């Protein structure tokens, strides 16, 4: 039996190539671990037969030599990715029983590279949420606990199943998606590494759309090295996504030298928000000191429009969502409401959507319909898109001044308990994304790196923001930060 708490994508790759481990053996260990962790509710669908068949094929390839880095690596796939003939519901009731007849580009690339699919991972409905509590499958529980308390904590969201599964050692890596922070916030909450690539680095084809100008997929894994390996396999131009960039994919792992001497790291003053716990402020300061000790230059910078990122996001994302989600009408797939005698197609549409969408999705679709409606389009939507231009310019200005990366906290707090935000204003939940959402609006890459534990023993993360297409350099700085932080805490197994 492999010690799943110690193994990484890099070490599994090396062990399999050296003939010390087979993918079938590793996959079976994970399938057993998944079955023993049902209480976490991280997996929405398990695919053990597919996993073992892929693992057997991977072993043949590895033995033949010349197998790609991701060959034989067992992964979990967020339920937002279409997987052929395998349940894909985006955590929603409205896609009940949907089994796509096609495979997303990213998962196609991963299977072509020999990776193994363990199953689909739970998530907030249509990726709208920060705690995984909007999922039709029910909330995901984090493997982490506050000291000896038994309170169930959120793994964050929307990629909560991915975060919980990776941190509980139920898979070596997971795909996530990030529209406003949905990879980086859950990664920070669970002590793992999550990368949101530059907009256009990874194909969106076959990924259920939320807000198309903000959505990007990325890896959620245990180490920065693993993120480099998995990101490379997920990246690349795709003719089926007109916004995917026709750029060569660098060897991200080769960029991990740990040498960051002379790099300029910006510390934006606007990220000191009211009510932020002192320990997050301290962790941020320590992170900067560590990068400085490694030879980087720390520079105070200003991103003056930061404050307006969340309100702009909550105009733009719901507007795009209301358009994208208009396809759920009870005709082509999923749930269809029953109608009464005398009712017609209009009632069928509106009742299907009332029954099929949860409250948070309904709220956002309606806000989106409102800000796009005649008379309000200029006042809300166009204004928000202009503010978005200013937010992007903030970043362009500091990068033009020679800043290589920007260091910020990943989240304004550690993980909270499931249900603790139930009666809170939706806006309060939106504030989870205060440090991450600017990156989506500007289309930049960002990575969340575990950096320490808070006084309750819960993980906290720091975020590095890179230049457009600068993932390799950004991950190298993240690698230096990871080395200096020496974070190796794991949740005590209670499930």
């Amino acid at each position, binding site marked *: 039996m492999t010690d799943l708490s110690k193994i990484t994508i890099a070490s599994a790759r090396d062990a399999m190539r050296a003939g010390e481990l087979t993918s079938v053996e590793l996959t079976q260990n994970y399938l057993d671990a998944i079955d023993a962790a049902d209480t976490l509710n991280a997996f929405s669908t398990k695919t053990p037969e597919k996993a073992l068949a892929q693992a057997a094929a991977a072993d043949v390839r590895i033995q033949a030599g010349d197998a790609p880095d991701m060959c034989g690596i067992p992964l979990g796939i967020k339920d937002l990715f279409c997987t052929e003939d395998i349940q894909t519901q985006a955590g929603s009731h409205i896609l009940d029983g*949907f089994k*796509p*007849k096609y495979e997303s580009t990213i998962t196609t690339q991963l299977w072509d590279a020999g990776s193994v699919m363990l199953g689909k991972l739970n998530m907030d409905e249509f990726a709208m949420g920060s705690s995984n509590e909007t999922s039709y499958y029910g909330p995901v529980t984090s493997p982490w606990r506050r000291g000896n308390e038994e309170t169930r904590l959120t793994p964050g969201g929307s990629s909560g199943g991915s975060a919980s599964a990776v941190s509980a050692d139920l898979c070596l890596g997971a795909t996530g998606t990030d529209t406003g922070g949905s990879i980086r916030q859950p990664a920070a909450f669970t002590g793992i590494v999550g990368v949101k690539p*530059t*907009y*256009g680095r990874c194909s969106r084809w076959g990924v259920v759309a939320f807000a198309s100008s*903000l959505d990007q997929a990325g890896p959620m894994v245990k180490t920065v090295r693993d993120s480099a390996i998995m990101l490379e396999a997920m990246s690349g131009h795709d*003719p089926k996504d007109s*916004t995917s*960039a*026709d750029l060569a994919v660098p060897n991200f792992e080769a960029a991990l030298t740990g040498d960051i001497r002379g790099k300029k790291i910006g510390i934006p003053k606007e990220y000191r928000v009211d009510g932020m716990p002192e320990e997050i402020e301290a962790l941020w300061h320590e992170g900067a000191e560590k990068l400085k000790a490694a030879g980087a230059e720390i520079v105070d910078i200003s991103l003056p*429009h930061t*404050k*307006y990122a969340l*309100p702009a996001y*909550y105009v733009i994302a719901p507007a795009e969502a209301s358009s994208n989600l208009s396809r759920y*009408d*009870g*005709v*082509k*797939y*999923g*749930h*269809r409401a029953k109608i009464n005698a005398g*009712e*017609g*197609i*209009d*009632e*069928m549409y*509106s009742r299907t*959507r*009332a029954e099929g*969408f949860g409250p948070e999705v*309904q*709220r956002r*679709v*309606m*806000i*989106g*319909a*409102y*800000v796009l*409606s005649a008379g309000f389009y200029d006042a*809300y939507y*166009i*204004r*928000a*898109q*202009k*503010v*978005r*231009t*200013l937010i992007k310019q903030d970043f362009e200005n500091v990068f033009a001044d020679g800043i290589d990366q920007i260091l910020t906290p990943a989240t304004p707090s550690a993980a909270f308990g499931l249900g603790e935000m139930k009666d809170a*204003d*939706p*806006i309060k939940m*939106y504030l989870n994304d205060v440090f991450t959402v600017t990156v989506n609006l500007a*289309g930049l890459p960002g990575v969340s790196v575990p950096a320490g534990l808070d006084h309750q023993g819960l993980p906290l993360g720091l975020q590095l923001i890179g230049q*457009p297409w600068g993932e390799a350099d950004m991950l190298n700085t993240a690698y230096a930060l990871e080395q200096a932080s020496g974070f190796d805490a794991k949740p005590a197994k209670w499930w």
Partner: protein
Amino acid sequence: MSIDKETARKVAHLARIEVAEEALEPLAGALSNILDFMEQLNEVDIDGVEPMTSVTPMDLKKREDVVSDGGYPERILANAPDTREGFFAVPKVVE
């Protein structure tokens, strides 16, 4: 910006989401709260600023205008709640 009950009804209709009569008031309140949060955007000077239309500046790729995919209606219909003779079936639209 405050949304009244009638506006909430209109928004629900635009979004094609059925909302019960008694749920319209609370919905109006919830939507108003979110719109209040967005009011902050009015503090920003946007004179002469272009709205963002593309996150990453790039020329949209073009391809030959030819049929490159398709010809499998059974796969398109496979997940539909109701189909008849190779078509999606819906409640009667025209009397």
